[in-house]
């Protein structure tokens, strides 16, 4: 008799321990993100910060003249050019609306001053090689959809990663602003919000990284250029 009772008590304790282990972690996550009413449908987020864009090649060209017969083959190359858009930094601001706890849409604007460099080489009359430059004023206005990965949150739920994708309008103003050229871009990426606090109104930090495919603007080639981007912002959720 005594022996049987002891066994039963041990089993009860073990069952309680298992139950607590199964419930508590889920409860903790729900408290920070899913269980609170912030963010909810209609919550707003504004953010602003710095963004860096990688450089990309714009291609090579030759200044050619028509070759006379008997003086060689192919066009006569007066000189050659090789151009690229240098890596650049800029400022961006974004405004978002949550459509659901894990889904938001946002619009933003980016302003940067990328420099275009053209390397001039191989002159037929031995002009010294030189790099000619021009600085653009670039504006990108875009719209994005963000999916917030609540299930992957960390830091007590303060850190919430997201993935995003969007498209934008590109406007390049050449020096002196006399010539404006437009284009567009598509973008995918991901990032992270880290909220400072858990109140209804909260500040936080936001990091973005992604890849843009740009065409048009100062780049006349009818092709998409792949541009890596990274940004860091301060965000406010309310």
């Amino acid at each position: 008799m005594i022996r049987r009772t002891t066994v039963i008590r041990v089993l009860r304790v073990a069952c309680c321990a298992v139950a607590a282990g199964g419930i508590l972690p889920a409860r903790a996550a729900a408290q920070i993100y899913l269980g609170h009413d912030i963010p909810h449908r209609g919550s707003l987020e504004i953010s602003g910060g710095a963004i860096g864009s990688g450089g990309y090649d714009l291609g090579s060209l030759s200044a050619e003249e028509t070759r006379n017969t008997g003086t060689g083959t192919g066009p006569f190359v007066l000189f050659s050019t090789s151009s690229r858009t240098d890596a650049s930094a800029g400022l961006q601001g974004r405004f978002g609306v949550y459509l659901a706890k894990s889904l938001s849409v946002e619009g933003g604007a980016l302003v940067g001053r990328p420099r275009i460099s053209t390397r001039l080489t191989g002159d037929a009359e031995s002009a010294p090689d030189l790099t000619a430059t021009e600085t653009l004023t670039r504006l990108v206005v875009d719209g994005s959809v963000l999916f917030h990965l609540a299930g992957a949150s960390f830091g007590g739920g303060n850190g919430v990663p997201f993935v995003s994708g969007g498209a934008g309008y590109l406007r390049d103003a050449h020096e002196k602003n006399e010539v404006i050229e437009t284009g567009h871009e598509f973008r995918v990426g991901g990032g992270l919000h880290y909220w400072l606090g858990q109140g209804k109104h909260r500040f936080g930090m936001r990091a973005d990284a992604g890849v843009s495919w740009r065409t048009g603007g100062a780049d006349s080639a009818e092709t998409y250029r792949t541009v890596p981007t990274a940004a860091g912002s301060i965000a406010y959720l309310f």
Partner: protein
Amino acid sequence: MRRGAALFLTAALVTVSAVPAAAYLKLGTKVGTRTVTLKWSQLPIRYFITDRGTTGVTSTQLQQTVQSAFSTWEAVPTAQISSQFVGTTLANPSSGDGATVIGFQNRPDLERTLGATSFLIDTTSGAIVESDIFFNTAFPWSVAAQGETGMFDLQSIALHEIGHLHGLAHSAMGETELRAGGRRVIAAESVMFPIAFSAGTILGRTLRADDIAGIGDIYPNSTYTRGTGSISGKITKSGKGVLGAHIVAFDMRTQKLVGGFSLTDDGSFVIAGVEPGPHVLRVEPLDDGDIESFFDATLNIDVDFRTQFYDKIVVVPKAGGTSGVELKVVAK
């Protein structure tokens, strides 16, 4: 004028002395203290063809070839020009009688001249009253569609001379090498380059960007004024202007080349008729032809400087201009 043997093309300005007015070059003349561009004030240009052929070319073929060359210029979308073949004539092409005459003439004394254009102008306005063109029968001519070995393509040379007839001077958009007997063209990117391509080719039948910019500059239409732009600035050396420097604008989108010259003592230049967009600039001394092929011999053309590029990308606006370019060159 186009010269043979060493195959030069130089403008023969028999009736009046003309001086360059602006880039490409355009022909000009002094009216008082001003230099004005030579151009026709009345269109269409009415012309006669001499009723004489030469070996391998009948007068009818001459007329058809000249008409084709006029049509090539008139097809430039940025220029407003027109011409009219009036009929044949027995008059010589250089008669100074008020009638524009184009034809063959035997000029063995001009041993390096394929053809030449002369003008009669109104010296009060710069308006061209008459212009005559001769093709030198001291050289073998061809009108074959694909050209003929050892013979000069009449259409190519007619296109060049009719460029003069409209008011264009010589372009420096080409490269040459010195050989026994004169210069030989290595390459050119303008019909108005003063030295002809070798006999047997028809490379000179096609207008290039430099020619198109030039003719549009003289006879602009609305497409020109709305659709092209200009680059202006100055070329200096040791703080002083350089006269006669050749500036080349390379369009980084279309790969077209348009050239111009610094034409004042302070080194100022204007290249008009340039397509909008980014360009790189290159300046070189005038060393690919006789200076007299381009400029009045009395001008002090500076060729003592090194070829070099400009360190800024120049973006040409549509229907506007990019000014303030200063390219500092150094002596050789």
